[in-house]
């Protein structure tokens, strides 16, 4: 160093590479995940086909598939899935909208937080299913009470995540905005909003999960159509194949919607410093 008394060593541009997550490494992991489901399916098939478990208690996978195929053929599957999907969709939309509105107000204005937060925390501790009798009493067994129940279930996780997302925005980033003399509105738009988006999506996904959970409850309490109604039919007519078919369909539709939100999330939050693994 001491020899170069008269020259500034040139700053060397660092080399950089855009990382691609090692695709080769992911395939074995996916295969690992298939071991248990395949094993389970094999045991299930063996136990039912050999008559070890009687079919009026647990039908074989083949019977369940056949039942689903029959539902598809007589056209009733689509109306069941459709109406359930519709209920979750509307309830999810209403719950999310309410959560976004209230959550933003509470997040941005500390006065509003002091007014609203205590009562929302109190309501939060009520198990949402406890509302069922009241909603039925108020709105009857129709769509309104079902959608309200779903909306209530969706509301809380979305609301709580929005509020904590806004309140936990890194103060240091806000300071950068202040150095550039951003107005309050610009701070919200350029820093607080994007910084709280990850938390919002976390809320959306857990809200969606709860939406699917609550639609089951809503449809169990009285419906003439829907996947939850299939559960009731299956129980009343002692057909476990219908029940399992319905559970399977719930799982598939629920997973598909979560997957859809996740795709949007990964698009919008591509900048996040996490590796998105799994589905």
């Amino acid at each position, binding site marked *: 160093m001491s020899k170069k008394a008269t020259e500034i060593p040139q*700053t060397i541009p660092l080399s950089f590479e855009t990382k691609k997550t090692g695709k080769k490494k992911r395939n074995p992991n996916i295969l690992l995940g298939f071991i248990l489901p395949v094993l389970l399916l094999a045991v299930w098939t063996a136990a039912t086909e050999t008559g070890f478990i009687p079919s009026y208690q647990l039908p074989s996978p083949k019977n369940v598939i056949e039942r689903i195929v029959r539902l598809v053929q007589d056209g009733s599957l689509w109306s069941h899935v459709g109406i359930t999907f519709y209920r979750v969709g509307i309830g999810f939309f209403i719950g999310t909208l309410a959560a976004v509105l209230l959550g933003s107000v509470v997040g941005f204005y500390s006065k509003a937080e002091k007014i609203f937060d205590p009562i929302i925390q109190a309501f939060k501790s009520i198990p949402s299913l406890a509302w069922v009798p009241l909603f039925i009493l108020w709105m009857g067994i129709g769509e309104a009470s079902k959608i309200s129940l779903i909306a209530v279930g969706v509301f809380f996780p979305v609301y709580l995540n929005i509020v904590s997302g806004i309140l936990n925005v890194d103060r240091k980033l806000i300071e950068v905005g202040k*150095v550039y*003399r951003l107005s309050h509105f610009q701070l919200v738009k350029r820093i607080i909003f994007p910084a709280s988006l990850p938390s919002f999506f976390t809320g959306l996904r857990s809200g969606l999960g709860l939406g699917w959970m609550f639609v089951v409850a809503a449809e169990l309490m009285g419906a003439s159509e829907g996947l939850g109604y299939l559960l009731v039919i299956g129980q009343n007519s002692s057909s476990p194949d219908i029940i399992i078919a319905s559970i399977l369909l719930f799982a598939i539709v629920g997973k598909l919607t979560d997957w859809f939100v996740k795709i949007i999330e990964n698009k919008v939050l591509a900048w996040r410093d996490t590796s998105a693994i799994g589905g």
Partner: protein
Amino acid sequence: MLTINRLTRIFGGENGVRNVSFSVEKGEIIGLLGKSGSGKSTILKAITGLDQGYSGDILINGEKIQGPHEEIGVVFQEPRLFPWLTVLENVQFGLNRNKKENIAAARELLKEVGLEHAENLYVKQLSGGMAQRVSIARALVTNPGLLLLDEPFSALDAFTKMQLQDLVLKIWKSQQLTAVIVTHDIDEALYLCDRILVLSGKPGQVEREFRIDEPRPRNRGSETLARMKAEILHSLGIEAVYS
């Protein structure tokens, strides 16, 4: 350029600074040096306008400042980049001209800090040194008359640190930069600064001022700097390490 008059800011009885006065001429690099807790960063925070609870005056070009000032650019200890923006968008953050001009200005600064090929990367793809370069570019793109650096390289490894110190000197030369740099690294202060203010005590006060007349670029191992280092250590109350 910058004048500080009897700046006092005390936290909890003894932390902070008392009666600090100094001024910075255009084109100067001033170092604020001191042990931790001597109030170096407190002074800088007051100049950025982020902390308004001080007494005394801070004047920029003879005008008393009230809060963040457009003539000031800040490089923080951490890069503080916005992770949802690309490198190019981060650099443009403080600009509010039209889009084309913003991009052109940002590209120019990225070139200056040696990151012209990284403009589309996100923050998560940057190394610590690259991120701090982006942060320097962001602070300079608005063409501030005064650049404040708050322990800007303390989190970097020794070699990256030297590269970035040279980068600061290069920009100082090409843009006639005026800068105040807070540091606890004596070598860094000796390598970069025209004057070094040593803060000590609780609350911190300006203990001594050192003027370094050696022309830049300086030799990091020069004898003059080594002698000054010993003096600075002495004024900080750290000595007799070797004897």
